[in-house]
């Protein structure tokens, strides 16, 4: 191993996050290189100094100020409030899509009404006429009259 390769290995070595093989390679290099030995000792010293150096603590009014800032936040919109009630928004969206696909599939299985043609009205009237024409009771009204009259009661 060369000094340049230590750049990628040294931090992991000092943290104890290297493989056994990597560790052996680093130690072999350190045994032969005074410069890198000094670097290792220097890094350890720096880490100790950093660990001993305190940082400023949060102020006593940190939480109160944060609560105030949160209170000043604008209220969520209508849709945001609706969305909040949905436990899983993705699930809700997927359900809506499923329903939409269901409707679409239903229109495929039931053929649509034919599009109106220029003489569509005439055709419809013709169909109604044929239906009425085929009804025997209407064609033969006398039969109907006989059936509706009670046997014991004759008309005048």
């Amino acid at each position, binding site marked *: 191993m060369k000094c340049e390769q230590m750049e990628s290995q040294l931090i*992991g070595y000092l943290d104890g996050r290297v493989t056994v093989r990597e560790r052996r390679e680093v130690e072999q290099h350190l045994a032969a290189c005074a410069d890198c030995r000094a670097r290792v000792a*220097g890094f350890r*010293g*720096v880490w100790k100094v950093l660990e001993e150096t305190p940082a400023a603590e*949060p102020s006593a009014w940190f939480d109160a100020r*944060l609560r105030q800032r949160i209170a000043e936040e604008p209220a969520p919109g209508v849709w945001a409030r609706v969305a909040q009630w949905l436990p899983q928004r993705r699930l809700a969206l997927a359900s809506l899509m499923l329903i939409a696909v269901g409707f679409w599939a239903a229109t495929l299985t039931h053929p649509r009404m034919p599009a109106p043609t220029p003489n569509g009205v005439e055709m419809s009237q013709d169909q109604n006429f044929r239906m009425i024409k085929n009804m025997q009771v209407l064609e033969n009204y006398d039969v109907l009259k006989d059936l509706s009259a009670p046997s014991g009661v004759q008309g005048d």
Partner: protein
Amino acid sequence: MVRSDVQLMLGVKQGDELSFELLLQRYRRPLCHFLNRMVRDAAQAEDLAQEVFLRVYRARRDYEPSAKFTTWLFRIATNLALNALRDGRHRQAEISLDAPAEGEDGSERTVEVADGAPIVEQQLVERDRVAVVRRAIQALPEKQRAAVLLHKYQEMDYDEIARILGCSVSALKSLLFRAYETLRVELAPLVAPEASGPSPRETSEGRQP
């Protein structure tokens, strides 16, 4: 039973204020420490820490536990700090040169002198020591600084730091190596002789090819 960060954040998402309080209790100090070391001004650091929590609160409805909570939290903090430093540089260019000298925390530099001479001396030595370390950290390039703070003070693993900084693990190790190499030189007077070994500048002839 202690609730995990993700469980708490899911609670916040459902509108549970206590969950947010617990997250605040858990991360107020580490976030303030991190930002305090990242930016120069203590008041600004605290303001940024509040901004981090505010952004977490604003994003609560869209929260999905896809990444580790701390990765998300410190990523917000790092980005805010880097932006603030960038803005600060722009503003600093406009400040006149005859502005009063400021202390490390942004306040006007003052030295308190009292009668208890040994204690004061000790405090001054300690304060100087802290100031030297702070200055050395502040002098690092911003990304190296963030890498050192997350590595040394937050004790995160390489993967998590790399995700926060948006770089590869090998790039992170390189960042850390260069940062500690700089600090080794800058903090040499504070490092105990047995720890530092021979001075970095004295051992150059021992370098291997």
